[in-house]
């Protein structure tokens, strides 16, 4: 079995597709996502947004937004065109008698022209709205004072949000993002080997040569399965390593969100075990599709939905809070990867949850492997037509 394993690993690792999907794909995928989320989560304090206003209102608007350094005002009489041409991200239109209407107690209309498909335009709009809301409160206070009413009547109580779970938005995002990318990368990374090791051997007729040797089919299948687990685990470990190296050295916001403290080593070990258990499930599932398929192409068609299966629990888990997690979340394979990593990223190492997760994954993997073995012992599934 060791000889078969050594040969399968050598053969698989000489395959350019395997190397590409095991190393290069996680590198590209992870880098792109990390920098995308870093940019998304970073405060936009240093950004300056170009705002346009008609000449007549320039001084008034300049006075209102003067305190906000992120907004730069310029004059353009055709505001819509200026935004469409990309000269500005937003524009403000005020009635020509705006100040007079305020003095008369009327309700003048303030229009903010923007492009909601542009993140910069939306952020600029938020800043403009905040500036006008502030001005609105000043006017309300003045009007109340004129009528001898204290402005505190408008705020009968104050609301405060207190976060009871540690971790900020960036941490939550990482806790969701990393297992999602990890599961997808493992699925994609293992695919070439999984399809090639069984369906490929059937298609090339090397399987017949193997079956005519005195090695029994169970040993043959076990060695192939183990090869898949090793390659999948390698992809997972490389993916996780890339995530941590890039977060550590190339990001600020995401880096600030991660602090494992004294738990760093246990978390690394647990992550490794969880990856291996997930790799075992993927190896069994893709081994099964490879047995059922007669050609590599057919195996790829069956396997692709399985490699993407992680998307489903990911979508569900994004809305589940830490206090809502139950044993079910740790028992259901694939979903439990998200729950365990959610805990790990918050620095929680719960032995019971980790054992349930790993045991559940290994049991499911074993059951699928046993079914695969039953099929592999039948000529119909191992011989090419």
């Amino acid at each position: 079995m060791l000889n078969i394993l050594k040969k399968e690993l050598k053969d698989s690792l000489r395959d350019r597709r395997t190397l590409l999907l095991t190393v290069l794909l996680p590198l590209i995928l992870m880098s792109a996502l990390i920098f995308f989320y870093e940019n998304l989560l970073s405060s936009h304090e240093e950004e300056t947004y170009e705002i346009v206003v008609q000449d007549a209102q320039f001084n008034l608007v300049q006075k209102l937004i003067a305190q906000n350094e992120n907004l730069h005002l310029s004059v353009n009489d055709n505001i819509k065109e200026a935004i469409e041409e990309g000269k500005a991200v937003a524009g403000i239109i005020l009635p020509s008698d705006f100040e007079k209407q305020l003095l008369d107690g009327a309700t003048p209309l303030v229009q903010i022209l923007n492009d909601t498909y542009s993140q910069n335009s939306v952020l600029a709009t938020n800043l403009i709205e905040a500036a006008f809301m502030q001005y609105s409160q000043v006017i309300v206070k003045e009007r109340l004072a004129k009528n001898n009413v204290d402005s505190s009547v408008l705020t009968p109580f104050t609301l405060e949000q207190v976060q009871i779970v540690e971790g900020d938005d960036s941490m939550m995002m990482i806790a969701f993002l990393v297992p999602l990318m990890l599961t997808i990368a493992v699925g994609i990374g293992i695919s070439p080997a999984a399809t090639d090791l069984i369906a490929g051997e059937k298609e090339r007729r090397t399987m017949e040569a193997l079956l005519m040797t005195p090695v029994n089919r169970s040993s043959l299948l076990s060695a192939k399965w183990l090869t898949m687990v090793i390659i999948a685990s390698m992809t997972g470990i490389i993916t996780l390593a890339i995530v941590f190296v890039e977060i550590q050295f190339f990001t600020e916001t995401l880096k600030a969100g991660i602090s494992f403290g004294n738990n760093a080593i246990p978390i690394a070990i647990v992550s490794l075990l969880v990856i291996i258990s997930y790799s075992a499930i993927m190896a069994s599932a893709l081994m099964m599709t490879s047995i059922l398929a007669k050609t590599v192409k057919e195996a790829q068609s069956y396997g692709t939905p399985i490699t993407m299966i992680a998307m489903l629990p990911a979508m569900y888990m994004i809305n589940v809070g830490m206090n809502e997690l139950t044993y079910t979340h740790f028992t259901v394979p694939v979903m439990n990867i998200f729950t365990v990593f959610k805990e790990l990223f918050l620095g929680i190492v719960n032995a019971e949850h980790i054992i349930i997760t790993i045991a559940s994954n290994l049991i499911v993997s074993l059951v699928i492997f046993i079914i695969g073995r039953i099929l592999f012992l039948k000529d119909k599934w191992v011989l090419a037509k």
Partner: protein
Amino acid sequence: MIQIHEVTKQFKDKKKYVTALKHVSLNVQEGEVIGLLGENGAGKTTLLRSISTLIEPSSGTIHIAGYDTVQQSAEVKKRLGVLFGSETGLYDRLTARENLEYFASLYGLGKHETKVRIEKLAKMFGMRDYLDRRVSGFSKGMRQKVAIARTILHDPEIILFDEPTTGLDITSSNVFRQLVHQLKREGKTIIFSSHIVEEVTLLCDRVAMIHQGELVYEGTLEKLYEEEASTDLNYIFMSKLVQGGNEYA
């Protein structure tokens, strides 16, 4: 050495059963070279696959050196070397040597023995120049030589070749024919299927003709020539097919 008794093989194709072999019985003595003749789809490959333990007969038995191919397949496999047609069954990303070493390990050969056997076979087939090159760049002839080397690497007592010269050039075909002669001199038992009657005439002690899954003739070439009053094996083969009811013959 090989006892095939009343072997029938049926395959399920969609909802119908197709009979590929019908009550085939054949005995092959030790050191004998027997040629299987038949058209494409006659059942030659199914018979060789059954002998090689790759598929189980639906009924009947096959014994190799006294071992049942179904009940004692591991013992049978140790004694067999099999090559199926133009499908060389080699790993493209491995070198010729790595392919041979891998199969040697599966047959339980030790490191030293493997090295000696590979050197011997490399010399025999003129493979030394490309032994350490990856198979992916090999011509069909080079692949076939490596595949034949892999087939006899563990020095099996019985060798099955299924249309081994299909797609080979004249030089490679001659190398194969010389190999069969040499293996025969070494006392190996060989069954090979072919639809090239001249090849069978040159190499075989006996012939077995299969038509639509049935064994229509089995015997020595001399006996066959005498019975048919002709030494033209092509003619005899066609006449046997007519007797077997082939409307296109």
